[in-house]
């Protein structure tokens, strides 16, 4: 996600210089400033979000609007977020995924969001509401942030679109593409793919099905010579380094908008639908401002800017329509519009024992070469 963003950041920086030393953000009028200290009794919040997941202006604008201090940290994975929390770090707003929120709720790490403060809640996609209710049945602990699916980005010049459509996940074991595959290095996504390719539920805990999935991945590892990657896959696919890559829909939308050679497919065997949402930890120190931050992020303008900047699908239907429409940054970009209502697609559920077991198996798959 870097080249375009670096450029945008450079522009933003130079604009700031041009705007001179007014001190505040160019987008905020002085009379609109609400003093956080006066209103909420505190003016500093810690945000912990995934990397490359917000527009450049969102946090600076918020700081200016509320005269607040914002410490903004990023994580690479939900597991890293969990490790940090267990290490005793305190935050005011976190943005984990569905299954991780389920786990944090269950372990009592979250507090309810003050729904009276969330006045900007937009017209949510029914799919989003359904996924939200799946982990937060009373819709009290989380506010949706982005959503999407997992699929395959492929080079249309080197991979026949009809072939990848018909093979789906099985193309990852097609010897024709040996050494030309980026595999996403996470036990969750790896086992999801193996379970789906074998026709099982990705939330299965049946020992035989797990063994079969393990064998599937091991065979893939031993015969296909894949490169295991995480975020670096985005740049690599923009540069057409390999022909097939497992990717999250939002990253794929960005790759497709940067490189016309690339196509996107959500395999017919089904995939993982996921949703990331904002939550407030029980030990937050500035809850009032945290609720206000969530309300700010969920507003249409900020959603639009964030979604346009990072490529992930907004939870706000009107934002999605605009960005997917003729004037939008992702006009008819298939990866920006994840599949809805397909019965083989599933959402992850939290299962700590299973997670540990799959984690170990995934390490074993990668090590054994």
């Amino acid at each position: 996600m870097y080249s375009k963003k670096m450029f945008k950041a450079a522009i933003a920086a130079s604009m700031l210089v041009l705007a001179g030393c007014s001190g505040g953000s160019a987008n905020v009028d002085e009379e609109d400033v609400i003093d956080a200290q006066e209103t909420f009794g505190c003016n500093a919040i810690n945000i912990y979000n995934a990397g490359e997941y917000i527009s450049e202006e969102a946090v600076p604008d918020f700081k200016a609007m509320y005269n607040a201090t914002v410490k903004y940290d990023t994580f690479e994975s939900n597991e890293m977020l969990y490790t940090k929390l267990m290490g005793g770090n305190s935050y005011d707003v976190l943005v984990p995924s569905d299954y991780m929120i389920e786990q944090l709720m269950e372990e009592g790490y979250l507090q309810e969001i003050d729904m009276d403060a969330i006045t900007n809640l937009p017209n949510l996609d029914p799919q989003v509401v359904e996924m939200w209710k799946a982990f937060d049945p009373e819709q009290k602990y989380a506010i949706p942030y982005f959503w999407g699916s997992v699929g395959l980005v492929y080079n249309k010049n080197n991979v026949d679109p009809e072939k990848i459509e018909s093979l789906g996940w099985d193309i990852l074991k097609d010897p024709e593409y040996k050494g030309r595959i980026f595999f996403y290095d996470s036990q969750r996504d790896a086992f999801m793919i193996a379970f789906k390719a074998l026709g099982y539920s990705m939330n299965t805990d049946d020992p035989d099905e797990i063994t079969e999935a393990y064998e599937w991945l091991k065979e893939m590892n031993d015969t296909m010579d894949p490169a295991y990657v995480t975020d670096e896959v985005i740049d690599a696919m923009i540069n057409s380094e390999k022909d097939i890559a497992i990717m999250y829909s939002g990253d794929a939308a960005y790759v497709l908008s940067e490189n016309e050679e690339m196509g996107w497919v959500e395999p017919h065997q089904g995939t993982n639908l996921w949703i990331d949402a904002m939550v407030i930890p029980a030990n937050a120190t500035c809850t009032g401002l945290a609720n206000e931050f969530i309300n700010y992020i969920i507003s249409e303008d900020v959603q639009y800017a964030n979604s346009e900047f990072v490529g992930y699908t907004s939870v706000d239907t009107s934002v999605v329509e605009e960005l997917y429409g003729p004037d939008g940054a992702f006009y008819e970009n298939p990866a920006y519009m994840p599949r809805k209502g397909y019965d083989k697609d599933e959402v992850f559920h939290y299962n700590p024992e299973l997670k540990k077991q799959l984690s170990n198996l995934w390490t074993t798959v990668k090590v054994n070469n």
Partner: protein
Amino acid sequence: MKNFSKLTYPYVIWMTVMIIIPMLMIVLYAFTVQGNSVLTLQFTLGNFARFFADRIFPSVLWRSLKVAVITTVICIAIGYPAAFVMAKLKANSAAMMVLLITLPMWINMLVRTYAWRGILTRFSLPPEIAVYIGMVYNFLPFMILQIYTALSKIDPSLLIAAHDLGANDRETFLRVTLPLSLSGVVSGITLVFLPAVSSFFIPKLLGGGSYILIGNLIEEYFVSTGDWNFGAAISLIMAIIILISMYITRKLDRETKEDD
């Protein structure tokens, strides 16, 4: 002089907080089961049993040692001749060479490894080869500089004396220069082998994630799996291996010094 000893207090405090306490915590984690609170510690040797019971963990350990040894050997093979030539240069040229060798070290190692990634992905090398290139590139300067320092300390009159006593170039090298430079080789080995055996971002970035060494395994268990106890056990096993290798190199060092 006695009063000056107080000046070491900041260092002692730093050591305690930053090194000793974390080390003790690693030991504690390594010998306990997951989900402990401070009040109910449950001790176990299970983490170590698990490491050695499974074929794959010792094989990763073995691979890490192999990579570190081969890296060290390549560094000596390339570094010794380079240092030898440098020691023969005039003072100015030698200083220039030292500068050129240290120059890349002014840039962060991680950044340089990322640069290599960009270069190496253009040739589809086996991950193993890419990792060796990255390792040797990163650690070679340490080897060259150590050997160069030892070589340049050799008194030239010793070489003249050897010639006067009838030794040819080859004999002079084998019986005077080489033995006197071994202490440099030994400290070079310390500076290359130890970081190489525990390095994790070079295999991670250049091996395409599919070439796992012991450092990567530790990272995996702490960050992705969240199994700190097993991760701590692996760390402790590695710490013991490093202690053993330090002991061996120390001994070698002392022996070469005694020969002097």
